């Protein structure tokens, strides 16, 4: 760099001197009466000087070019050497398992983290097809992943199981992209992040929620049935006060069951342990089954429930647990908040891309100033609390979360004292 700077300075000075000399000569020629012989000699001298200077300039420029070129080559060589040393080092020592594969999936390079993940010595997997270690699942990922690679489609954080050479199964988050090397040959770069521990924690959470659900509900059923036997066995012998106490016990057992169901659902939603499982559902039987859950309550309250179908689609692909959460809560609310003599209508509609459940009631409605909060956790409308209607305040929160998981939307229209219409729209798979 110093050489280039000094050469550039010399070039600059030379140009200035040349211009000044020629300029001065011309100035005196034009403005002063100097004998032409002197002028001719001076001008000739100036020309000779400039030629000499130009020669020096050309030589210096050549030197500048050579210096710059040499410097560039030197810098490039240094950078190349640095990267040749740095990047293989980064690849080898990276805490992330990196595997380079050829166009058929055969390992051409692997790092230490891969050796650790597979519990093998370094480079043992070189020459082996990495896709052979993938364990297939219901989604057929072991087949899909190589197909994606073949079509040069990138994969990002796909959860899949691998079976190590020692037979041990591990869960990994797999990312894969393909690229072309200098000879245009296709290669792939694979990263595998070990998520086995995370999966175990998720499984433990799911099992805990399921166990809690079963363990809590069993004594609730026992209490419910034994109170029923107590009342039935004591018929005629209970005083009115004793009957009232027994009814309160029965009512609170039902309330406890609702709370357990809602808290467990919220827990599943918030822990993210709900695994969406799409199965084919007989829509007619499914909706009828949910309506049947509320038929006895509806009959007790003299509330009529009707179902009508505006669709020929009688089966859909959905998650039965989530769909049950949604439809059961909305129909349940409609029945609960509709006074005696009222009507709850369930209308099922299909527009080609979506299935719509429109549940309307002639119930107490939601006060306008409270409508913005009805999907909040533990929120209950003031009119619902005033009229002492049982509820946990979690139902619509659960519905909204479940609808979002299924990729749908929920909207409503409500008028206090007149009723509500809830519309759940779900995309068809």
């Amino acid at each position, binding site marked *: 760099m110093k050489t280039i700077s000094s050469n550039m300075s010399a070039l600059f000075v030379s140009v200035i001197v040349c211009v000044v000399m020629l300029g001065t000569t011309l100035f005196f020629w034009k403005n002063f009466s100097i004998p032409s012989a002197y002028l001719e000699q001076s001008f000739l001298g100036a020309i000779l000087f400039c030629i000499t200077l130009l020669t020096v300039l050309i030589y210096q420029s050549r030197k500048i070019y050579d210096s710059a070129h040499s410097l560039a080559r030197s810098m490039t060589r240094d950078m190349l050497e640095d990267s040749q040393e740095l990047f293989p080092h980064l690849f080898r020592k990276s805490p992330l398992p990196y595997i380079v594969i050829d166009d058929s999936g055969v390992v051409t390079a692997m790092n230490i983290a891969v050796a650790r993940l597979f519990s093998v010595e370094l480079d043992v997997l070189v020459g082996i097809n990495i896709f052979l270690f993938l364990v297939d699942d219901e989604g057929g990922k072991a087949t899909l992943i190589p197909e994606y690679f073949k079509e040069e489609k990138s994969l990002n954080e796909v959860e899949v199981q691998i079976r190590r050479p020692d037979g041990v199964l591990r869960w990994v988050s797999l990312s894969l992209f393909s690229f072309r090397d200098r000879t245009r040959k296709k290669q792939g770069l694979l990263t595998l992040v070990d998520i086995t521990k995370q999966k175990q924690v998720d499984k433990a959470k799911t099992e805990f929620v*399921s166990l809690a*659900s*079963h363990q809590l*509900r*069993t*004594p*609730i*059923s*026992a209490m*419910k*049935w*034994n109170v*029923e*036997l107590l009342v*039935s066995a004591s018929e005629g012998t209970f005083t009115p006060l004793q009957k009232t106490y027994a009814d309160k016990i029965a009512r609170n057992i039902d309330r406890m*069951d609702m709370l357990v*169901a809602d808290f*467990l659902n919220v827990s599943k939603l918030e822990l993210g342990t709900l695994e969406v*499982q799409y*199965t084919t559902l007989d829509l007619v039987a499914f909706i009828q089954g949910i309506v049947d*859950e509320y038929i*006895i309550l509806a009959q007790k309250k003299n509330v009529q429930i009707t179902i009508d179908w505006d669709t020929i689609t009688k089966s859909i692909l959905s998650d*039965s*647990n989530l769909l*049950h959460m949604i439809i059961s809560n909305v129909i349940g609310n409609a029945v609960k908040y509709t006074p005696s003599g009222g009507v709850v209508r369930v209308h099922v509609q299909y527009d080609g891309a979506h299935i719509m459940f429109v549940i309307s009631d002639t119930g107490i409605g939601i006060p306008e100033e409270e409508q913005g909060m009805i999907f909040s956790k533990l929120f209950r409308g003031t009119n619902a609390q005033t009229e002492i209607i049982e509820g946990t305040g979690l139902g619509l929160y659960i519905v909204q979360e479940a609808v979002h998981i299924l990729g749908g939307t929920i909207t409503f229209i409500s008028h206090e004292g007149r009723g509500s219409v809830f519309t759940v729209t779900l995309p068809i798979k």
Partner: protein
Amino acid sequence: MNTNTHKNKILIVEDEIDLRDALVTAFTYEGFLTLVAGDGEEGLSVAEAEAPNLILLDISMPKMNGLTMLKKLRETAWGKDTKVIVMTVLDDLSKVAEVMDAGGDEYVVKTQVTLTEIVQKVKHKLDL
């Protein structure tokens, strides 16, 4: 195998004693002949010996769960047509679907049904 001449002989397969006793009391009161078993294995052997008209079958049980018992029952000549009402606590509807696919005739959610309602369902299933 015993030949059943009754129309109202039922088998209750439930591991929880308090639930089982409540069901026995309710059905006995209604004039049913009730048999009991505490797990799927016992349930199969009682069903083979006594040929009940209907089985009330819990899903979650030790030793052999309701799903396994139902599958084995449906593989037998004597059990393939026995009416089965499955009892569940509704923590997993997909498990219920699996049981229904295995040959269950109906299911009830224990926390959402009274004893009177279960008795009515059984009477309806047996045309009593």
